[in-house]
């Protein structure tokens, strides 16, 4: 077993760390920068880092999962909101990478690469529920050379600003899973609308929205495996199984940022005549935090490695997501405790990280759903 990173990975991590620390991190808690701002995405786009898993032939960097996870940790450690926007884009391209036609790849992938890269969204959740697919209502009716799509989706990251959205819909309300497909919807499509932008308690940077489709015509060329009913469900599950490892990587980044902040504070804060790091209770708390971060990181790496090897990654990815999200929540709260009153101050880094970590156990399938997935494979 070899845990070392190769030279290319080390250089990329170094470059991204420097970039995000100087150009993106300063805006995480800056009062002048709340909400989405293309400027931060542009900083990544200059280095073709908006959707680096896109193959080189379509303009991307063709990164494998493990390398992507390394970069995602760096982005999340600097700015979890930016990481969420990038992760949503990676998620949206996955069905195209897995099963898209050459025409779809040529049309949709280059839009997310290069200096002017746009963003994409993945829309599954509806007002009626995100966990139970059998109550999904978004429905498509085949007509002529395409499908008419009707319905709505909610809490979709990037929906208000995405160049295109991968929408999950079914053609039969009776056999939903067996008739699901992935529809690639362009932002300017007639009948598509943004109902509202959601205000969330964390990931403030990420634009999250409710969207609706009223007789939106989607030509067959923009439906992944359009001829194959049921392809959507299989692509959806595979996309989630791959994407969950990336939530693990975001979790590691958030937890690491909290640990680094707490460590620096503990070294400099003096109480009872010595730095608080010299008080064993504080030192042990830091030790537990560091151990947990490493645990989440290793589980994320293993899941990504299995994905890259074409192994059986479903369980490993779900485990990385559960462990990572719970560790991110524990570590950010522990860091807030070490910072004392400063950890509870509005606009402080730790306060932001606690709020950002909170949602990790809900997105990409709640942790209860992950546990159900893991249990089904035991």
């Amino acid at each position: 077993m070899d845990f070392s990173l190769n030279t290319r990975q080390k250089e990329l991590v170094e470059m991204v760390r420097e970039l995000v620390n100087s150009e993106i991190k300063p805006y995480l808690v800056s009062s002048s920068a709340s909400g989405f701002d293309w400027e931060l995405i542009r900083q990544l786009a200059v280095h073709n880092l908006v959707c680096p898993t896109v193959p080189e032939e379509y303009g991307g960097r063709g990164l494998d999962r493990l390398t992507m996870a390394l970069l995602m940790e760096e982005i999340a450690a600097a700015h979890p909101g930016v990481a969420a926007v990038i992760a949503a884009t990676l998620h949206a391209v996955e069905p195209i990478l897995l099963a898209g036609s050459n025409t779809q790849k040529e049309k949709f992938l280059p839009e997310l690469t290069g200096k002017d890269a746009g963003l994409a969204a993945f829309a599954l959740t509806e007002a009626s529920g995100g966990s139970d697919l059998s109550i999904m209502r978004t429905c498509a009716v085949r007509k002529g050379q395409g499908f008419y799509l009707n319905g709505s989706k909610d809490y979709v990251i990037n929906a208000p600003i995405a160049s295109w959205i991968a929408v999950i819909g079914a053609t039969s309300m009776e056999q939903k899973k067996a008739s699901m497909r992935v529809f690639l919807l362009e932002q300017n499509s007639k009948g598509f609308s943004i109902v509202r932008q959601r205000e969330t308690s964390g990931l403030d940077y990420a634009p999250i929205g409710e969207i609706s489709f009223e007789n939106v015509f989607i030509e067959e060329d923009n439906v992944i495996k359009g001829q194959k009913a049921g392809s959507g469900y299989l692509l959806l599950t595979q996309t989630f199984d791959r994407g969950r490892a990336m939530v693990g990587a975001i979790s590691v980044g958030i937890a690491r940022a909290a640990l680094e902040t707490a460590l620096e504070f503990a070294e400099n804060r003096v109480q009872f005549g010595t730095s608080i790091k010299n008080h064993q209770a504080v030192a042990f708390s830091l030790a537990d935090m560091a151990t947990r971060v490493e645990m989440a990181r290793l589980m994320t790496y293993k899941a990504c490695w299995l994905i890259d090897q074409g192994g059986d990654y479903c369980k490993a990815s779900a485990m990385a997501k559960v462990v990572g999200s719970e560790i991110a929540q524990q570590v950010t709260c522990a860091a807030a405790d070490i910072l004392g009153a400063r950890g509870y101050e509005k606009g402080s880094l730790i306060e932001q990280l606690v709020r950002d970590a909170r949602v990790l156990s809900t997105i990409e399938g709640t942790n209860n759903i992950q546990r159900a997935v893991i249990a089904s494979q035991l």
Partner: protein
Amino acid sequence: MSFKQIGRKLQLAREEKGMSQEQLARALGCSQSALSNYEKGKRRLYLSHLEKLSEILDKPLEYFMENNRPPVEKEHLLGGDRSDQFLHLINIIYQLSDEQIREVLSYIEYIKWKEKRGGQ
């Protein structure tokens, strides 16, 4: 329709084709233990696997995906939770003439058609 159900249908289709787990695993390019886990629903079958399996086993993708119960095997018929109901039905059918059995089957087809009519 769960991965367990998809796996069960895979097993039925493999048996119908007269292939062993080893033979199908070889054709699919995976190990026999992986195939066994696919059939038990302990490992997820993704689109690329099912497309290949559809070809090998001459079944459309929908066969694996549709939410109908796979045909009951003889040994499961009287062992499941609905065995009393099934036994009762079999006893009634047993008393019928061939013509009456045909009528019952056409009524069942009608019930299934009525159920399907709702969706598009």
